[in-house]
Every structure is written in structure tokens, then in C-alpha cells.
């Protein structure tokens, strides 16, 4: 079972976002980055599948020099090698460009499975995995909470709305987008970190001819507004109106 795991590097969650001068993306000068959380679960799932079925795990990422950090972390956790698609202006790329770059990087390796996180913690479009499947011509399924390999097919449990799940089977090779919480993440060991230094990170160039089809026009923090409304009427009527407002307008109950 040879598995590729696509990993995005995103700003840490406790970083207070600041918008760049153009108002199109964050000002990433002072940012600390980390592995996108759903991608960490995808990596963990890949490592577990490798432990069960053998094979190898290859971590892939697209971005500038700094993304080597998340690849090294993946290697420290147990990935066998990594592919770094070098791309300086990752912030100006959409899922189409990123998926195109990933597809070019993994196509020749004949992976049985390609795992991605369900979505990224920064942009949250949830597109890279499915576009990648299309570009590779692989079957795919999203929001995966369990993976079972059965010779040349894979059965997966998808999370639906309202506490419902769905089992789907499809032929390999396939792309799965993994939901956070599918497993329990292991932590990197000191031995893993040391061993990672000897593992290969293959650098590849961005394929030519990829242009973004989607652009962020403006990024802004939602404006907080305060509005006071006096509810009149008898106590019983006022309570009823209040509950309706809380439920339907404020949506807090």
C-alpha cells in the first residue's frame, strides 16, 4: 500500500491574524506556521494503514522554503520520504493550481491511495482533494472517518450531517479527504526527529501553465455591531418573542 499524503502549512491557530497591505491575504511576516490539522490526521491514517498493510508513506507539500518544516515533521512522525513542490507565491494560488502541482508531483509514482485533510484551517475551501482526484483520474470520497482496505478496493465511512454516516466502496487508486478526529494523533519521538534528518525531501519545480481561476478580492475581519432591541408586551409574550429572536435571529439556542 503506497500512500501519498498532501500536507498544507497554515498559520498557528493562536496567531492573531493581521491583513496584508493589499487587503488580499494575511500579513505573514510574523506568523508561526504549523501543519494543517486535518492533514495531520490524514498523515496519521496513512501511517496506520502502512503499519497494517505494509508499503510506504510519502508526504507532499506545495509552497516556499518554509513548508520544509511540515515535511520534516511528517518524516519525524514516520513518513518514509517527502516531495516539496517549490512555489514562492502560494498565497496567490487557488485549489486548482495547488491540486495541479500535486497531481504532477505524484502522478508517476503510482500511489494506491492519496490522502488529504478535509479542508485547510486557513482558507477552508475543501477543494484541493477533490480537484486532485479529478486531475489524477482517481475515484474519491470526502469527509472520511474510517478506512478499510480490501485487496483492490477501499471501503470508507463518510460523515454526513446530523450525526449520520455513510459507507462507500470504490476501486483503488483513490483520493480520500480525511476528517479531523478519525484517529488519535501520535507525537513525534526524538528518535523519529533524528531519523528524519536522513530521509529524502525531493524538491520539484512547479509545472508550467497553471493559472489561478479564483482570486481573493478582499479579506477583512467581520465588523462587530451592537444593536439593542427592547421587547415589549406582557412577560409571557416578551419571553416568547425573546426565544424566537434567540433561535432564529441570533441562532444561539
Amino acid at each position, binding site marked *: 500500500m503506497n500512500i501519498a499524503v498532501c500536507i498544507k502549512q497554515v*498559520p*498557528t491557530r*493562536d*496567531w*492573531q491574524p493581521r491583513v496584508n497591505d493589499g487587503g488580499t491575504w494575511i500579513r505573514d511576516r*510574523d*506568523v*508561526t506556521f*504549523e501543519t494543517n490539522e486535518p492533514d495531520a490526521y490524514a498523515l496519521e491514517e496513512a501511517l496506520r494503514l502502512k503499519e497494517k498493510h505494509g508499503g510506504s508513506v510519502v508526504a507532499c507539500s506545495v509552497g516556499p522554503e518554509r513548508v520544509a*518544516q511540515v515535511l*520534516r*515533521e511528517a518524516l*519525524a512522525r514516520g513518513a518514509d520520504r517527502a516531495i516539496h513542490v517549490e512555489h514562492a507565491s502560494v498565497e496567490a494560488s487557488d485549489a486548482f493550481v495547488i491540486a495541479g502541482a500535486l497531481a504532477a508531483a505524484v502522478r508517476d509514482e503510482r500511489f494506491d491511495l492519496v490522502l488529504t485533510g478535509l479542508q485547510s484551517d486557513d482558507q477552508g475551501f475543501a477543494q484541493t482533494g477533490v480537484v486532485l482526484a479529478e486531475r489524477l483520474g482517481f475515484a474519491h470520497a470526502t469527509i472520511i472517518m474510517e478506512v478499510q482496505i480490501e485487496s483492490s478496493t477501499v471501503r470508507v465511512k463518510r460523515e454526513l450531517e446530523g450525526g449520520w454516516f455513510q459507507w462507500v466502496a470504490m476501486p483503488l487508486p483513490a483520493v480520500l479527504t480525511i476528517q479531523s478526529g478519525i484517529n488519535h494523533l501520535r*507525537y*513525534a*519521538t*526524538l*528518535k523519529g*526527529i*533524528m531519523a*528524519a534528518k536522513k530521509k529524502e525531501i525531493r524538491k520539484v519545480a512547479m509545472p508550467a501553465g497553471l493559472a489561478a481561476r479564483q482570486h481573493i478580492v478582499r479579506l477583512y475581519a467581520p465588523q462587530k455591531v451592537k444593536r439593542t432591541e427592547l421587547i415589549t408586551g406582557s412577560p409571557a409574550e416578551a419571553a416568547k418573542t425573546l426565544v424566537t429572536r434567540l433561535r432564529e435571529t441570533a441562532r444561539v439556542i
Partner: protein
Amino acid sequence: MTTGVRASRKDGQGHEEIRAAVSDLCSRFSPEYFRRVDESRGYPEEFVDALTRAGWLSALIPEEYGGAGLGLTEASVIMEEINRSGANSGACHGQMYNMGTLVRHGSEAQKRELLPKIASGELRLQSMGVTEPTTGTDTTKIVTTAVRNGDRYVIRGQKAWISRIQHSDLMILLARTTPLDQVRKKSEGLSILLVDLRTSIGRGLTVKPIANMVNHETNELFFDDLEVPAENLIGEEGKGFRYILDGLNAERALIAAECIGDGYWFIDKVTRYASERVVFGRPIGQNQGVQFPIARAYVNTRAADLMRYQACALFDEGRPCGAEANMALMLAAAASWEAANACLQFHGGYGFATEYDIERKFRETRLYQVAPISTNLILSYVAEHVLRLPRSF
């Protein structure tokens, strides 16, 4: 996981992979967990197990014996991150450095037998028995004796403030093997024995826990003709004092790093609080009376950090580092205490509430101006050995 706060500062940098991994492991243990352990005066067994399994406590053990073979610099970063995460390395730092005596002075057979088991955590060597009730820093005056009798040493005497005995399998023990009046120099005639606590307690060794201000497991030990196999002698008989001194510099530099981790923890905590807490219509952190003590604690923590790195670098190059290791400890212990005070003060009453964790860390970090060495003794060391002033005692 590194924090966003840290990204805009220059502290806590270098060895990012180690920092991120240790911090990630620590983040799996909640503040409630450490609070519970503290309140019950328990031992953070699961936390220490996780650190051991991930290999963090065997960083200094050479690779050929199952460790990572890293330097003191990396080991100090591990300790710093543990404390910076809100935990307390005091529960387990003995496992990190006590085996140093064995690595440097043990026989090949002892090393082959013990180090891989210490590296895996199968054996815990977390205790060092040096201090006695009547002999603190005046180590050569210890009265615990080990008398050779055939293939055994027979130990009589008493030790005090011996930490982590109840969570160790082995202890490094310093005892006098040649009476003080029969040696040329008072530093001679002391030897190090490895005591197997599993077979000794109740058979010549009695352990009496000392209740204390922090949740730190420390004990009085009573040796009443405890027999230890002669093969447990580490290095040569009579040279134990020098062997012990070799290990103390590592201990001091590591504990300096723990204080630095504490210092940053307090500074991060109080900085966040002072930015958010609004009194009289503005954040309290807007007042210079609040800013300056925090800024001063940060300045001093950063300065101590530099001395820590210098001590570790010298140690890793195999060069003398006694002055730097001691100075790092003194600066770091003072800085973390200063940061602790600022943190407690500006949290007002909340600082005293257990759920803020400040009072716990406050108690924990205070220890390091007293142990492993009183800061006054560091000053007298610097006066005598660095400045060449006349010996004061």
C-alpha cells in the same frame, strides 16, 4: 506546537523541531491534569511515561547505548519546553542527567547492562544521594560510610532531601570509603555506588518522605548496614567527589533552562492577561507601572537564556563550564522568580486561584534559588574561583 506569541519574539528559537515536538507532547496533558497531580501530591506518571516513550529523557545517553546522543544544549531545550508548557521537569529531570556519572565513569559492563534499560525507561535512575542532614554544600564532610566487606560494601548513615526515590529503581550514592582523617585531601576517600532501590528498601534502607511546599517527592534516607555488591562501585574507589562534580554542571545548566521555561510561561501568561484585563476603561497593560516589571523580567530571562546557551556550548565542547553553568542557574532562577512575582501581582486575586496555575508555578520556580544549590553559594564560587578572591569559608 509553537505559539503565535512566540513568533513575533526572538526567544525560544533554535532547535525548532525539538521545541515543536516537546511542546506538542506536553499539550496533550491539560492544565487540569497537572493541577490534579499537584492537589493530590501525586506523581505525573502518565506524563513521565509519555516523555520517556518518546525518547526525550534519554537525549544525553550515547546512541550506542540506546539514547539519542545529543548534547546538553538540546537536552536543555527539552527541559525548557517542558516548563514553558506549564509542566514541571522536576518530576523527571533526574532521569536526564543522573546517568551522566555512569556514562563518564562507569565500566563498559555497567554501561552495557544499564544504559539501554535507562534509555528505554525500563529502569529509572532519577535519584542522587549526596546531601546529608548535617552536611549541605560542605560535601566532603558527609558522614555516611561504605565499608568494604568481601564482595560487598556495607553502608551506614543518613541522607536528606533525596528526590524521586519513590519513583526510581536506582540511585547514585556518595559515601565515604576512607575516613576523613586518613586521606591527604578531604575531597579524597569518597566513592560512588549504584544502589538498587528495588532490593534495598526495607533491607537496610529506610525511606521517610518529607512533606514540602511544592509537590516535589523528596525524602530522608536511613542506611542501617545496607549491603551493596562491590561491583556496583562506579569508577575508582575514593574518586567519587570528582565524579559528582562532573555531573553538577550539567544539572545546573538544565535547571537554568527549566527556570527560563518558567520565566517565559509567566511572561506569556501575564502579558496576555494584562492586554485583556480592562480596569478604569483601559487594559491594565497600558500602564507603565504594569509594563515595566514584566518587561524587566523578560529582559532578565533573555539575558539568563544567553548564559544558559554559553554554559551548554562549553559543556558540549568538553570545556570547563563551572562558572557559566552556575551563573546561568543563578540568573535564570532570579529571572523566573521575578517573572513569577509580576505574573502573580498583575493577576490580582486571580493569581492566587488554583485554576490559573500561577500559584503552583510560583511555588515550583521558587525552589531553584535554593536547590540544587543556594544562590549564595554560587556567588561565593564566582568570588573565589572566577575573581580569585580569598576563600570565604
